[in-house]
Protein backbone atom coordinates (compact mmCIF):
# COMPACT_ATOMS: atom_id res chain seq x y z
CA UNK A 1 0.00 0.00 0.00
CA UNK A 2 0.92 3.61 -0.49
CA UNK A 3 2.04 4.33 3.06
CA UNK A 4 4.64 1.56 2.80
CA UNK A 5 7.17 0.96 0.01
CA UNK A 6 4.92 -1.52 -1.84
CA UNK A 7 3.31 -0.48 -5.12
CA UNK A 8 -0.46 -1.04 -5.09
CA UNK A 9 -1.42 -4.29 -6.81
CA UNK A 10 -2.79 -4.17 -10.36
CA UNK A 11 -6.09 -5.87 -11.21
CA UNK A 12 -4.58 -7.81 -14.14
CA UNK A 13 -1.21 -9.46 -14.81
CA UNK A 14 0.89 -8.76 -17.90
CA UNK A 15 -0.17 -12.10 -19.39
CA UNK A 16 -3.85 -11.30 -18.86
CA UNK A 17 -3.41 -7.86 -20.46
CA UNK A 18 -1.51 -9.33 -23.40
CA UNK A 19 -4.36 -11.79 -23.97
CA UNK A 20 -7.08 -9.15 -23.68
CA UNK A 21 -5.61 -6.15 -25.52
CA UNK A 22 -4.28 -6.37 -29.11
CA UNK A 23 -0.68 -5.18 -29.25
CA UNK A 24 -0.23 -4.83 -25.48
CA UNK A 25 3.45 -4.17 -24.81
CA UNK A 26 4.46 -3.87 -28.48
CA UNK A 27 6.27 -0.63 -27.62
CA UNK A 28 7.40 -1.68 -24.16
CA UNK A 29 11.01 -1.12 -25.16
CA UNK A 30 11.63 2.65 -25.41
CA UNK A 31 13.86 1.94 -28.44
CA UNK A 32 10.65 1.13 -30.36
CA UNK A 33 9.11 4.51 -29.54
CA UNK A 34 9.73 6.99 -32.37
CA UNK A 35 9.95 10.05 -30.12
CA UNK A 36 12.45 8.58 -27.66
CA UNK A 37 14.84 10.29 -27.19
CA UNK A 38 13.38 13.71 -27.85
CA UNK A 39 16.26 14.97 -30.00
CA UNK A 40 17.28 12.62 -32.81
CA UNK A 41 19.54 13.68 -35.67
CA UNK A 42 17.64 13.15 -38.94
CA UNK A 43 20.28 11.94 -41.38
CA UNK A 44 17.86 11.87 -44.34
CA UNK A 45 16.56 15.41 -43.65
CA UNK A 46 13.12 13.99 -44.37
CA UNK A 47 13.59 14.53 -48.09
CA UNK A 48 14.90 18.11 -47.99
CA UNK A 49 17.63 18.88 -50.55
CA UNK A 50 18.84 22.26 -49.31
CA UNK A 51 20.71 23.69 -46.35
CA UNK A 52 18.55 26.77 -46.30
CA UNK A 53 15.37 26.85 -48.40
CA UNK A 54 14.78 29.14 -51.36
CA UNK A 55 12.92 32.26 -50.37
CA UNK A 56 9.25 32.67 -51.25
CA UNK A 57 8.57 36.08 -52.90
CA UNK A 58 7.19 38.65 -50.47
CA UNK A 59 4.25 40.22 -52.32
CA UNK A 60 3.31 42.66 -49.54
CA UNK A 61 5.12 43.71 -46.36
CA UNK A 62 4.59 40.52 -44.42
CA UNK A 63 4.03 41.03 -40.68
CA UNK A 64 6.42 39.02 -38.52
CA UNK A 65 7.38 38.47 -34.91
CA UNK A 66 10.21 40.75 -33.79
CA UNK A 67 11.72 37.66 -32.16
CA UNK A 68 12.64 36.43 -35.66
CA UNK A 69 15.91 37.58 -37.21
CA UNK A 70 14.26 37.92 -40.61
CA UNK A 71 11.16 36.92 -42.56
CA UNK A 72 11.06 33.13 -42.70
CA UNK A 73 11.76 31.73 -46.18
CA UNK A 74 8.27 30.25 -46.43
CA UNK A 75 5.06 31.72 -45.05
CA UNK A 76 1.30 31.68 -45.45
CA UNK A 77 -0.42 34.18 -47.70
CA UNK A 78 -4.00 33.84 -46.51
CA UNK A 79 -5.88 37.04 -45.64
CA UNK A 80 -3.40 39.96 -45.80
CA UNK A 81 -4.09 42.55 -43.08
CA UNK A 82 -6.67 45.14 -44.08
CA UNK A 83 -8.72 47.99 -42.61
CA UNK A 84 -8.61 49.01 -38.96
CA UNK A 85 -8.01 45.42 -37.86
CA UNK A 86 -4.97 45.29 -40.12
CA UNK A 87 -3.56 48.45 -38.52
CA UNK A 88 -3.97 46.92 -35.07
CA UNK A 89 -2.33 43.68 -36.18
CA UNK A 90 0.64 45.51 -37.71
CA UNK A 91 1.07 47.47 -34.48
CA UNK A 92 0.99 44.27 -32.41
CA UNK A 93 3.71 42.69 -34.55
CA UNK A 94 5.85 45.84 -34.89
CA UNK A 95 5.90 46.88 -31.24
CA UNK A 96 5.55 43.86 -28.99
CA UNK A 97 7.31 40.52 -28.76
CA UNK A 98 5.45 37.25 -28.16
CA UNK A 99 6.53 37.58 -24.53
CA UNK A 100 4.27 40.58 -24.00
CA UNK A 101 0.58 40.25 -23.15
CA UNK A 102 -0.02 43.43 -25.20
CA UNK A 103 0.97 41.52 -28.36
CA UNK A 104 -1.72 38.89 -27.91
CA UNK A 105 -4.38 41.21 -26.50
CA UNK A 106 -4.00 43.51 -29.50
CA UNK A 107 -4.27 40.55 -31.87
CA UNK A 108 -7.42 39.35 -30.10
CA UNK A 109 -8.85 42.89 -30.28
CA UNK A 110 -8.01 42.99 -33.99
CA UNK A 111 -9.89 39.71 -34.47
CA UNK A 112 -13.06 41.24 -32.98
CA UNK A 113 -12.67 44.40 -35.09
CA UNK A 114 -12.05 42.24 -38.18
CA UNK A 115 -15.29 40.33 -37.55
CA UNK A 116 -17.30 43.57 -37.31
CA UNK A 117 -15.61 45.08 -40.36
CA UNK A 118 -16.33 41.93 -42.32
CA UNK A 119 -19.94 41.64 -41.16
CA UNK A 120 -20.67 45.27 -42.04
CA UNK A 121 -18.93 45.13 -45.41
CA UNK A 122 -20.78 41.89 -46.24
CA UNK A 123 -23.99 43.92 -46.34
CA UNK A 124 -22.57 45.75 -49.35
CA UNK A 125 -22.16 42.46 -51.23
CA UNK A 126 -24.53 40.02 -52.88
CA UNK A 127 -23.96 37.59 -50.00
CA UNK A 128 -24.43 39.27 -46.62
CA UNK A 129 -23.60 37.35 -43.45
CA UNK A 130 -26.44 35.14 -42.31
CA UNK A 131 -26.09 34.18 -38.63
CA UNK A 132 -28.63 31.37 -38.97
CA UNK A 133 -26.85 29.46 -41.73
CA UNK A 134 -23.31 30.41 -40.67
CA UNK A 135 -23.68 29.28 -37.06
CA UNK A 136 -25.09 25.94 -38.22
CA UNK A 137 -27.68 26.28 -35.49
CA UNK A 138 -30.27 24.45 -37.58
CA UNK A 139 -28.37 21.25 -36.82
CA UNK A 140 -29.99 21.52 -33.38
CA UNK A 141 -33.07 20.10 -35.13
CA UNK A 142 -31.43 17.58 -37.45
CA UNK A 143 -28.81 16.34 -34.93
CA UNK A 144 -30.94 15.79 -31.82
CA UNK A 145 -30.13 18.98 -29.95
CA UNK A 146 -32.50 18.24 -27.09
CA UNK A 147 -31.93 14.53 -26.56
CA UNK A 148 -28.17 15.05 -26.85
CA UNK A 149 -28.32 17.24 -23.75
CA UNK A 150 -31.30 16.33 -21.57
CA UNK A 151 -30.60 13.75 -18.87
CA UNK A 152 -26.96 13.38 -19.91
CA UNK A 153 -25.22 14.90 -16.83
CA UNK A 154 -23.16 17.02 -19.22
CA UNK A 155 -20.94 19.61 -17.59
CA UNK A 156 -20.99 21.94 -20.62
CA UNK A 157 -24.75 22.53 -20.82
CA UNK A 158 -24.72 25.25 -18.19
CA UNK A 159 -22.31 27.45 -20.13
CA UNK A 160 -23.72 26.63 -23.59
CA UNK A 161 -26.60 28.99 -22.80
CA UNK A 162 -24.03 31.80 -23.03
CA UNK A 163 -23.24 31.00 -26.67
CA UNK A 164 -26.37 32.62 -28.18
CA UNK A 165 -25.66 35.69 -26.06
CA UNK A 166 -22.08 35.85 -27.35
CA UNK A 167 -23.18 35.43 -30.97
CA UNK A 168 -26.42 37.43 -31.06
CA UNK A 169 -25.82 39.88 -28.19
CA UNK A 170 -23.63 42.36 -30.10
CA UNK A 171 -26.08 42.31 -33.04
CA UNK A 172 -29.05 43.03 -30.78
CA UNK A 173 -27.08 45.79 -29.08
CA UNK A 174 -26.04 47.32 -32.42
CA UNK A 175 -29.63 47.29 -33.72
CA UNK A 176 -30.88 48.84 -30.47
CA UNK A 177 -28.27 51.61 -30.70
CA UNK A 178 -29.12 52.23 -34.37
CA UNK A 179 -32.87 52.37 -33.68
CA UNK A 180 -32.36 54.73 -30.76
CA UNK A 181 -30.15 57.01 -32.87
CA UNK A 182 -32.66 57.11 -35.73
CA UNK A 183 -35.52 57.92 -33.33
CA UNK A 184 -33.57 60.78 -31.81
CA UNK A 185 -32.78 62.16 -35.24
CA UNK A 186 -36.44 61.94 -36.27
CA UNK A 187 -37.56 63.73 -33.10
CA UNK A 188 -35.10 66.57 -33.71
CA UNK A 189 -36.30 67.02 -37.29
Amino acid at each position, binding site marked *: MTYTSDKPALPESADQLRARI*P*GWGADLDPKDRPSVPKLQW*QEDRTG*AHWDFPDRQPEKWPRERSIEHKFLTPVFGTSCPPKGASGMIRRLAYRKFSEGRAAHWLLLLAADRVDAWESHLSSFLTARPDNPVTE*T*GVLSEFSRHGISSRVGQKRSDVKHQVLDPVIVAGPWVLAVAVAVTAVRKLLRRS
Partner: protein
Amino acid sequence: MRAMVYRGPYKVRVEEKAPPVVEHPNDAIVRVTMAAICGSDLHLYHGMMPDTRVGMTFGHEFIGVVEEVGPAVRNLVPGDRVMMPFNIFCGTCWFCARGLYANCHNVNPNATAVGGIYGYSHTCGGYDGGQAEYVRVPFADVGPTVIPEWMDDEDAVLLTDALATGYFGAQLGDIVEGDVVVVFGAGPVGLFAAKSAWLMGAGRVVVVDHLEYRLAKARTFAHAETVNFTECDDIVVHMKKITDHLGADVAIDAVGAEADGNFTQHVTAAKLKLQGGSPVALNWAIDSVRKGGTISVMGAYGPMFSAVKFGDAMNKGLTLRMNQCHVKRQWPRLFEHIRNGYLKPSDIVTHRIPLEHIAEGYHMFSAKLDGCIKPLIVPNAV
Protein backbone atom coordinates in the same frame (compact mmCIF):
# COMPACT_ATOMS: atom_id res chain seq x y z
CA MET B 1 -12.95 26.37 -55.77
CA ARG B 2 -15.30 25.70 -52.86
CA ALA B 3 -13.79 26.24 -49.44
CA MET B 4 -14.80 26.57 -45.82
CA VAL B 5 -14.33 30.17 -44.71
CA TYR B 6 -14.26 31.62 -41.18
CA ARG B 7 -16.68 34.55 -40.74
CA GLY B 8 -16.05 35.39 -37.07
CA PRO B 9 -16.60 33.53 -33.77
CA TYR B 10 -19.11 30.66 -34.12
CA LYS B 11 -19.66 31.42 -37.82
CA VAL B 12 -18.33 29.62 -40.90
CA ARG B 13 -19.63 29.16 -44.41
CA VAL B 14 -18.63 27.71 -47.77
CA GLU B 15 -17.53 30.23 -50.38
CA GLU B 16 -16.16 30.30 -53.88
CA LYS B 17 -12.49 31.14 -53.39
CA ALA B 18 -9.51 31.53 -55.75
CA PRO B 19 -7.69 28.19 -55.95
CA PRO B 20 -4.19 28.11 -54.43
CA VAL B 21 -1.13 28.55 -56.64
CA VAL B 22 2.50 27.49 -56.39
CA GLU B 23 4.22 30.28 -54.43
CA HIS B 24 7.57 28.59 -53.76
CA PRO B 25 9.58 26.18 -55.94
CA ASN B 26 8.99 23.32 -53.48
CA ASP B 27 5.22 23.82 -53.21
CA ALA B 28 2.61 21.33 -54.39
CA ILE B 29 -1.09 21.87 -54.97
CA VAL B 30 -3.18 19.02 -53.61
CA ARG B 31 -6.81 18.22 -54.46
CA VAL B 32 -8.38 17.31 -51.13
CA THR B 33 -10.27 14.02 -51.08
CA MET B 34 -10.98 13.89 -47.35
CA ALA B 35 -10.50 16.22 -44.38
CA ALA B 36 -11.54 16.27 -40.74
CA ILE B 37 -12.61 18.76 -38.12
CA CYS B 38 -10.25 18.57 -35.16
CA GLY B 39 -11.13 19.46 -31.57
CA SER B 40 -8.47 22.16 -31.79
CA ASP B 41 -10.32 23.70 -34.76
CA LEU B 42 -13.00 24.56 -32.22
CA HIS B 43 -10.58 26.93 -30.46
CA LEU B 44 -10.37 28.86 -33.74
CA TYR B 45 -14.11 28.56 -34.33
CA HIS B 46 -14.80 30.01 -30.87
CA GLY B 47 -12.41 32.93 -31.49
CA MET B 48 -9.88 31.90 -28.85
CA MET B 49 -6.70 31.82 -30.94
CA PRO B 50 -5.19 35.28 -31.51
CA ASP B 51 -4.87 36.43 -35.14
CA THR B 52 -7.59 34.25 -36.61
CA ARG B 53 -8.68 36.28 -39.60
CA VAL B 54 -12.05 36.40 -41.29
CA GLY B 55 -11.68 34.69 -44.67
CA MET B 56 -9.26 31.99 -43.54
CA THR B 57 -9.90 28.35 -44.45
CA PHE B 58 -9.35 25.95 -41.55
CA GLY B 59 -8.35 22.30 -41.68
CA HIS B 60 -5.05 20.68 -40.68
CA GLU B 61 -6.16 17.05 -41.08
CA PHE B 62 -6.52 16.13 -44.75
CA ILE B 63 -5.42 13.80 -47.50
CA GLY B 64 -5.65 14.19 -51.25
CA VAL B 65 -4.18 13.76 -54.69
CA VAL B 66 -1.26 15.83 -56.03
CA GLU B 67 -2.58 18.15 -58.72
CA GLU B 68 0.52 20.24 -59.51
CA VAL B 69 4.10 20.48 -58.27
CA GLY B 70 6.58 23.36 -58.17
CA PRO B 71 9.79 23.24 -60.27
CA ALA B 72 12.00 22.07 -57.36
CA VAL B 73 9.81 19.15 -56.25
CA ARG B 74 11.54 15.77 -56.69
CA ASN B 75 9.66 13.32 -54.50
CA LEU B 76 6.06 13.74 -55.69
CA VAL B 77 4.35 13.74 -59.08
CA PRO B 78 0.80 14.71 -60.08
CA GLY B 79 -1.59 11.88 -59.36
CA ASP B 80 0.13 10.68 -56.17
CA ARG B 81 -2.31 9.87 -53.35
CA VAL B 82 -0.79 11.65 -50.38
CA MET B 83 -1.26 12.35 -46.69
CA MET B 84 0.03 15.55 -45.12
CA PRO B 85 1.23 15.90 -41.51
CA PHE B 86 -0.54 18.83 -39.88
CA ASN B 87 2.93 20.35 -39.36
CA ILE B 88 4.44 22.43 -42.14
CA PHE B 89 8.22 22.02 -41.83
CA CYS B 90 11.41 22.62 -43.79
CA GLY B 91 13.49 19.57 -42.83
CA THR B 92 16.76 21.43 -42.31
CA CYS B 93 16.50 24.10 -39.60
CA TRP B 94 18.08 23.44 -36.16
CA PHE B 95 14.83 21.92 -34.91
CA CYS B 96 13.87 19.84 -37.96
CA ALA B 97 17.41 18.44 -38.18
CA ARG B 98 16.87 16.99 -34.69
CA GLY B 99 13.38 15.66 -35.36
CA LEU B 100 11.36 18.49 -33.82
CA TYR B 101 9.27 19.06 -36.93
CA ALA B 102 6.48 20.74 -34.98
CA ASN B 103 8.97 23.42 -33.92
CA CYS B 104 10.29 24.28 -37.39
CA HIS B 105 11.85 27.76 -37.46
CA ASN B 106 11.54 28.42 -41.20
CA VAL B 107 7.79 28.37 -41.81
CA ASN B 108 6.10 30.72 -39.36
CA PRO B 109 7.06 34.40 -39.48
CA ASN B 110 4.26 35.34 -37.09
CA ALA B 111 5.62 33.52 -34.06
CA THR B 112 8.74 31.77 -32.84
CA ALA B 113 6.90 29.87 -30.11
CA VAL B 114 4.97 27.65 -32.51
CA GLY B 115 5.72 26.13 -35.90
CA GLY B 116 3.62 26.16 -39.05
CA ILE B 117 0.21 24.49 -39.16
CA TYR B 118 -2.26 24.32 -42.05
CA GLY B 119 -5.39 26.40 -41.51
CA TYR B 120 -4.60 27.34 -37.94
CA SER B 121 -4.58 31.16 -37.75
CA HIS B 122 -1.74 33.54 -38.51
CA THR B 123 -0.25 32.73 -35.13
CA CYS B 124 0.64 29.42 -36.80
CA GLY B 125 1.87 30.95 -40.05
CA GLY B 126 -1.18 32.16 -41.97
CA TYR B 127 -1.61 29.12 -44.23
CA ASP B 128 -5.02 28.17 -45.57
CA GLY B 129 -6.10 24.67 -44.62
CA GLY B 130 -7.61 21.57 -46.13
CA GLN B 131 -11.34 22.01 -45.55
CA ALA B 132 -11.54 22.98 -49.21
CA GLU B 133 -11.27 21.46 -52.65
CA TYR B 134 -7.59 22.40 -53.07
CA VAL B 135 -4.75 23.37 -50.75
CA ARG B 136 -1.21 24.69 -51.08
CA VAL B 137 1.30 22.25 -49.55
CA PRO B 138 4.68 23.91 -48.82
CA PHE B 139 7.86 21.80 -48.73
CA ALA B 140 6.26 19.05 -50.76
CA ASP B 141 9.48 17.01 -50.69
CA VAL B 142 9.51 17.02 -46.87
CA GLY B 143 6.05 16.73 -45.33
CA PRO B 144 3.72 14.65 -47.51
CA THR B 145 3.97 10.88 -47.85
CA VAL B 146 2.39 8.69 -50.51
CA ILE B 147 -0.37 6.69 -48.82
CA PRO B 148 0.38 2.95 -48.90
CA GLU B 149 -2.00 1.11 -51.21
CA TRP B 150 -3.27 -1.11 -48.39
CA MET B 151 -4.31 1.85 -46.23
CA ASP B 152 -7.91 3.14 -46.07
CA ASP B 153 -8.51 6.85 -46.65
CA GLU B 154 -10.16 7.22 -43.26
CA ASP B 155 -7.21 5.62 -41.47
CA ALA B 156 -4.85 7.85 -43.44
CA VAL B 157 -6.66 11.08 -42.60
CA LEU B 158 -6.60 10.23 -38.89
CA LEU B 159 -2.84 9.64 -39.08
CA THR B 160 -2.32 13.29 -40.05
CA ASP B 161 -3.00 14.46 -36.50
CA ALA B 162 -5.35 12.70 -34.07
CA LEU B 163 -3.76 9.24 -33.99
CA ALA B 164 -0.19 10.53 -34.23
CA THR B 165 -0.85 13.03 -31.44
CA GLY B 166 -2.44 10.47 -29.12
CA TYR B 167 0.44 8.05 -29.71
CA PHE B 168 2.98 10.84 -29.17
CA GLY B 169 1.19 11.82 -25.96
CA ALA B 170 1.54 8.31 -24.56
CA GLN B 171 5.26 8.37 -25.42
CA LEU B 172 5.76 11.64 -23.54
CA GLY B 173 4.32 9.89 -20.49
CA ASP B 174 7.46 7.71 -20.36
CA ILE B 175 5.24 4.75 -19.49
CA VAL B 176 6.93 1.67 -18.00
CA GLU B 177 5.37 -1.76 -17.59
CA GLY B 178 2.57 -1.75 -15.04
CA ASP B 179 2.08 2.01 -14.88
CA VAL B 180 -1.35 3.38 -14.02
CA VAL B 181 -2.21 5.92 -16.73
CA VAL B 182 -5.08 8.38 -16.45
CA VAL B 183 -6.22 10.14 -19.62
CA PHE B 184 -8.28 13.29 -19.25
CA GLY B 185 -10.57 13.64 -22.27
CA ALA B 186 -12.29 10.94 -24.31
CA GLY B 187 -12.18 12.79 -27.61
CA PRO B 188 -10.18 11.40 -30.55
CA VAL B 189 -6.74 12.26 -29.09
CA GLY B 190 -7.68 10.91 -25.66
CA LEU B 191 -9.03 7.67 -27.14
CA PHE B 192 -5.85 7.19 -29.18
CA ALA B 193 -3.63 8.08 -26.20
CA ALA B 194 -5.45 5.51 -24.06
CA LYS B 195 -5.10 2.87 -26.72
CA SER B 196 -1.40 3.72 -27.18
CA ALA B 197 -0.73 3.52 -23.43
CA TRP B 198 -1.45 -0.22 -23.63
CA LEU B 199 1.08 -0.60 -26.46
CA MET B 200 3.68 0.83 -24.10
CA GLY B 201 2.83 -1.63 -21.37
CA ALA B 202 0.45 0.24 -19.08
CA GLY B 203 -1.00 -1.90 -16.30
CA ARG B 204 -4.17 0.10 -16.00
CA VAL B 205 -5.72 2.85 -18.14
CA VAL B 206 -8.45 5.15 -16.80
CA VAL B 207 -10.23 7.68 -19.05
CA VAL B 208 -12.04 10.67 -17.53
CA ASP B 209 -14.70 12.74 -19.30
CA HIS B 210 -18.25 14.02 -18.77
CA LEU B 211 -19.79 12.79 -22.02
CA GLU B 212 -21.18 9.33 -21.43
CA TYR B 213 -21.22 8.36 -25.12
CA ARG B 214 -17.51 9.11 -25.37
CA LEU B 215 -16.74 7.16 -22.21
CA ALA B 216 -18.63 4.22 -23.72
CA LYS B 217 -16.27 4.46 -26.72
CA ALA B 218 -13.28 4.55 -24.36
CA ARG B 219 -14.45 1.27 -22.84
CA THR B 220 -14.99 -0.53 -26.15
CA PHE B 221 -12.38 1.04 -28.43
CA ALA B 222 -9.60 1.71 -25.90
CA HIS B 223 -10.34 -1.13 -23.42
CA ALA B 224 -10.14 1.45 -20.63
CA GLU B 225 -11.80 1.92 -17.27
CA THR B 226 -13.83 5.12 -17.29
CA VAL B 227 -14.88 7.81 -14.84
CA ASN B 228 -17.59 10.41 -15.47
CA PHE B 229 -16.36 13.37 -13.44
CA THR B 230 -19.88 14.73 -13.05
CA GLU B 231 -20.64 11.68 -10.89
CA CYS B 232 -17.76 12.40 -8.50
CA ASP B 233 -17.85 14.94 -5.70
CA ASP B 234 -14.17 15.55 -6.31
CA ILE B 235 -12.38 13.89 -9.22
CA VAL B 236 -8.96 14.27 -7.57
CA VAL B 237 -10.08 12.43 -4.44
CA HIS B 238 -11.73 9.81 -6.62
CA MET B 239 -8.49 9.23 -8.51
CA LYS B 240 -6.62 8.85 -5.23
CA LYS B 241 -9.17 6.37 -3.92
CA ILE B 242 -9.02 4.13 -6.98
CA THR B 243 -5.20 4.07 -6.85
CA ASP B 244 -4.93 3.16 -3.17
CA HIS B 245 -4.16 6.85 -2.48
CA LEU B 246 -0.91 6.78 -4.45
CA GLY B 247 -2.20 8.61 -7.53
CA ALA B 248 -1.66 7.63 -11.16
CA ASP B 249 1.90 7.18 -12.39
CA VAL B 250 1.19 9.09 -15.59
CA ALA B 251 -1.52 11.60 -16.54
CA ILE B 252 -2.26 12.73 -20.08
CA ASP B 253 -4.13 15.99 -20.73
CA ALA B 254 -6.04 15.35 -23.94
CA VAL B 255 -8.50 18.22 -23.44
CA GLY B 256 -6.77 21.57 -23.66
CA ALA B 257 -8.10 25.08 -23.89
CA GLU B 258 -11.84 24.52 -23.54
CA ALA B 259 -11.84 22.11 -20.63
CA ASP B 260 -15.06 21.74 -18.67
CA GLY B 261 -15.49 20.90 -15.02
CA ASN B 262 -15.01 24.36 -13.55
CA PHE B 263 -17.47 27.02 -14.69
CA THR B 264 -15.24 29.99 -13.83
CA GLN B 265 -12.17 28.58 -15.55
CA HIS B 266 -14.16 27.67 -18.65
CA VAL B 267 -15.98 30.99 -18.96
CA THR B 268 -12.91 33.17 -18.31
CA ALA B 269 -10.96 31.23 -20.95
CA ALA B 270 -13.39 30.08 -23.64
CA LYS B 271 -16.02 32.83 -23.45
CA LEU B 272 -14.20 35.92 -22.12
CA LYS B 273 -10.76 35.06 -23.59
CA LEU B 274 -9.02 36.23 -20.41
CA GLN B 275 -6.81 33.12 -20.30
CA GLY B 276 -4.93 31.23 -22.99
CA GLY B 277 -7.03 28.22 -22.11
CA SER B 278 -9.10 26.66 -19.34
CA PRO B 279 -6.55 24.54 -17.44
CA VAL B 280 -9.11 22.39 -15.61
CA ALA B 281 -7.87 19.09 -17.04
CA LEU B 282 -4.24 20.08 -16.58
CA ASN B 283 -4.86 21.03 -12.95
CA TRP B 284 -6.69 17.78 -12.35
CA ALA B 285 -3.76 15.95 -13.93
CA ILE B 286 -1.31 17.74 -11.63
CA ASP B 287 -3.34 16.82 -8.56
CA SER B 288 -4.27 13.28 -9.64
CA VAL B 289 -0.84 12.01 -10.53
CA ARG B 290 1.47 10.63 -7.84
CA LYS B 291 4.43 12.56 -6.50
CA GLY B 292 7.35 12.13 -8.89
CA GLY B 293 4.94 11.23 -11.68
CA THR B 294 4.77 12.44 -15.25
CA ILE B 295 2.25 14.60 -17.05
CA SER B 296 1.97 14.66 -20.81
CA VAL B 297 0.12 17.64 -22.24
CA MET B 298 -1.46 17.03 -25.64
CA GLY B 299 -4.33 19.48 -25.24
CA ALA B 300 -3.81 22.69 -27.18
CA TYR B 301 -3.67 26.01 -25.34
CA GLY B 302 -3.49 29.57 -26.62
CA PRO B 303 -0.36 31.68 -26.20
CA MET B 304 -1.76 33.77 -23.34
CA PHE B 305 -1.22 32.83 -19.69
CA SER B 306 -3.47 30.27 -17.97
CA ALA B 307 -4.19 29.70 -14.26
CA VAL B 308 -2.15 26.52 -13.87
CA LYS B 309 -1.47 25.09 -10.40
CA PHE B 310 2.24 25.24 -10.86
CA GLY B 311 3.04 25.15 -7.13
CA ASP B 312 1.53 21.69 -6.77
CA ALA B 313 3.49 20.51 -9.79
CA MET B 314 6.72 21.79 -8.26
CA ASN B 315 6.09 20.48 -4.77
CA LYS B 316 5.17 17.05 -6.11
CA GLY B 317 8.31 16.83 -8.19
CA LEU B 318 6.39 16.22 -11.39
CA THR B 319 7.82 15.93 -14.86
CA LEU B 320 5.73 17.94 -17.30
CA ARG B 321 6.26 17.01 -20.95
CA MET B 322 4.49 18.55 -23.91
CA ASN B 323 4.72 19.62 -27.53
CA GLN B 324 2.79 19.63 -30.72
CA CYS B 325 3.27 16.20 -32.28
CA HIS B 326 6.05 15.68 -34.83
CA VAL B 327 3.64 13.73 -36.97
CA LYS B 328 5.87 12.32 -39.68
CA ARG B 329 8.27 10.90 -37.10
CA GLN B 330 5.45 8.68 -35.77
CA TRP B 331 4.29 7.31 -39.11
CA PRO B 332 6.60 4.34 -39.79
CA ARG B 333 5.81 2.74 -36.42
CA LEU B 334 2.11 3.61 -36.62
CA PHE B 335 1.89 2.10 -40.11
CA GLU B 336 3.23 -1.14 -38.56
CA HIS B 337 0.69 -1.02 -35.73
CA ILE B 338 -2.19 -0.51 -38.17
CA ARG B 339 -0.94 -3.28 -40.42
CA ASN B 340 -0.60 -5.63 -37.44
CA GLY B 341 -4.18 -4.88 -36.42
CA TYR B 342 -3.22 -3.23 -33.13
CA LEU B 343 -4.81 0.07 -34.15
CA LYS B 344 -7.83 0.80 -36.34
CA PRO B 345 -8.15 4.58 -36.21
CA SER B 346 -11.26 4.87 -38.38
CA ASP B 347 -13.27 3.06 -35.67
CA ILE B 348 -13.75 6.42 -33.95
CA VAL B 349 -15.29 8.19 -36.98
CA THR B 350 -18.92 9.03 -36.28
CA HIS B 351 -19.93 11.44 -39.04
CA ARG B 352 -19.11 12.01 -42.72
CA ILE B 353 -20.24 15.46 -43.88
CA PRO B 354 -20.27 17.12 -47.30
CA LEU B 355 -18.19 20.29 -47.44
CA GLU B 356 -21.33 22.27 -48.25
CA HIS B 357 -22.74 21.38 -44.79
CA ILE B 358 -19.65 22.50 -42.89
CA ALA B 359 -21.46 25.04 -40.69
CA GLU B 360 -23.78 22.32 -39.36
CA GLY B 361 -20.76 20.08 -38.88
CA TYR B 362 -18.95 22.65 -36.76
CA HIS B 363 -22.02 23.32 -34.63
CA MET B 364 -22.72 19.62 -34.11
CA PHE B 365 -19.10 18.92 -33.11
CA SER B 366 -18.85 22.02 -30.92
CA ALA B 367 -22.15 21.40 -29.12
CA LYS B 368 -21.44 17.63 -28.88
CA LEU B 369 -24.69 16.65 -30.60
CA ASP B 370 -25.71 13.31 -32.10
CA GLY B 371 -22.96 11.33 -30.37
CA CYS B 372 -20.30 13.13 -32.38
CA ILE B 373 -16.72 12.04 -31.74
CA LYS B 374 -14.95 12.57 -35.06
CA PRO B 375 -16.52 14.25 -38.10
CA LEU B 376 -14.90 13.88 -41.51
CA ILE B 377 -15.39 16.32 -44.38
CA VAL B 378 -15.70 14.92 -47.86
CA PRO B 379 -15.58 17.76 -50.45
CA ASN B 380 -17.73 16.15 -53.10
CA ALA B 381 -20.00 13.97 -50.97
CA VAL B 382 -23.75 14.34 -51.36
